[in-house]
């Protein structure tokens, strides 16, 4: 049996006393790509935030590589650097004086005190390599607040890839990207996942993408409604149960231009 990177058992999160996520259990085998789907307000982002320790949970056992998330939402030191998170958007306000190279370098450095000028061995090479692998080398001197949406997402991938990690969590990471940027990002994610052996958990509304690239789907609507392979979980009947009877899966195919 494959190693389980993330295990969630009986997750329950209340908002204003009302459960927004209830009794959710799932496990992510090593190097799997799992999509969390469901209608708006189903609690997808809440599950992600609770699993990352960003939101308090009322019940539930969450384990990363067998190590438990504390009730305060902190991972033990041994696994803390194994997670990376790509949110819908970061709170970058105004011109934050941080270049792409600085930002990616911060992804390499461990947390805690260190002299600003004491670069660990291989730091510079690791940054260059991460920028190269995410097609960001040309952006290295740019300010992060000057980047376009697609560039910013790639820089965040460079942040993730600059040091080895096990779990990558994405919350609608493609939101706001146009079709070509989204396609480019998805392909890059797929390549890096294979090369790095990442286990991926991604919240997505793009069911076509989920069908193409994920190997496990979790259908959520406050509780877990069903889970399994994309073909099983995303059948027309299952989707109607999840999104309501009026739901028509949107498929979009271009005819070749004359």
């Amino acid at each position, binding site marked *: 049996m494959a190693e389980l990177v993330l295990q969630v058992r009986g997750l329950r999160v209340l908002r204003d006393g009302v459960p927004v996520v209830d009794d959710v259990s799932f496990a992510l085998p090593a190097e799997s790509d799992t999509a969390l789907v469901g209608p708006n307000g189903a609690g997808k982002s809440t599950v992600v935030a609770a699993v*990352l*320790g*960003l939101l308090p949970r009322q019940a539930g056992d969450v384990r990363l590589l067998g190590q438990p998330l504390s009730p305060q939402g*902190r*991972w033990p030191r041994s696994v*803390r*650097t194994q*997670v*990376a*998170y790509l*949110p819908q958007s*970061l*709170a*970058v*306000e105004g*011109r*934050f*004086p*941080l*270049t792409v190279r*600085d930002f990616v370098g*911060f*992804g390499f*450095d461990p*947390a*805690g*005190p*260190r*002299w*600003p000028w004491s670069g660990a061995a291989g730091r510079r090479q690791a940054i260059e390599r991460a920028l190269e692998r995410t097609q960001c080398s040309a952006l290295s001197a740019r*300010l992060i607040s000057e980047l376009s949406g697609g560039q910013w997402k790639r820089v965040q991938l460079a942040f993730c890839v600059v040091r080895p990690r096990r779990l990558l*969590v994405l919350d609608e990471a493609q939101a706001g990207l146009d079709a070509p940027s989204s396609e480019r990002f998805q392909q890059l994610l797929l390549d890096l996942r294979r090369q790095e052996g990442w286990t991926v958990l991604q919240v997505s509304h793009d069911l076509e993408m989920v069908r193409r690239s994920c190997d496990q789907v979790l259908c959520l609507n406050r509780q877990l409604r069903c889970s399994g392979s994309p073909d099983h979980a995303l059948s027309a009947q299952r989707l109607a149960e999840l999104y309501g009877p009026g739901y028509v899966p949107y498929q979009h195919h271009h005819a070749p231009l004359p």
Partner: protein
Amino acid sequence: MDLLLAPLLQPMEMVFMQRALAIGVVVAVVCAVLSCFMTLKGWALMGDAVSHAVLPGVVIAYALGLPFALGAFVFGVGSVGVIGTIKQHTRVKEDTVIGLVFTGFFALGLVLISKIRSSVDLTHILFGNLLGITDADLVQTLVISAVCLLVLLLLRRDLLLFCFDPTHARTIGLNTGVLHYLLLTLVSLTAVAGLQTVGIILVVAMLVTPGATAYLLSDRFDRMTWLAVLSAVSATVLGIYASYWFDASTAGCIVVVQTLQFLLVMVLAPRHGLLARRRSP
């Protein structure tokens, strides 16, 4: 030549002026580095609150014969705790809570000063006493400044990521709760250091203006930090001289020079100044 240098050298023949200049420069450096983080975090109001809220702590520490940094630390961090608790349990907005708590603490400090018989001179705490610093004050200020500067240097990466996006910082394993209180503790301690130079009322200028001036001049954090230090140190030196030449309030002179620097940069900064932006809309 002597005629030109005399106004600069003559004040420095006096020991109290040498001390004022030395300690003023040290405090300016610490405040400037911290001000870069405060500017990026958008914590000017919080800096104002904490620096005012340390007053009762300083008075109590004086009265009990304890180091005033201790009292300032307890009340500075305590005020932040009170702000957080009120915000969490009422519907009142944060800026209102901050305004309410720091004036309350400050008023308590005024009451204590008026009731506790001690050697505390109110005007020295409120407006600084750079020209009358004792040996004990000197040592205490130097120790506080060195500790703050060391923490800021060693945790530069973590603090910068925290200012950038606390949520992101947390997901990559930083203890943002600790960083939040650490930054506020540094503000409390720096307020105590700044108390000697410009006093409690104006110390917030030292914690905000150099960072804001440097932010208009550079898009790189390291360069911004150096520019903030340059701005704060030059304002302190010029301010001390100005106060000597014009026989005016030292704290007032330092902060007026800082503000003038900001206004000048706001108009003339090469990329982000008003003139440059008018030329290239």
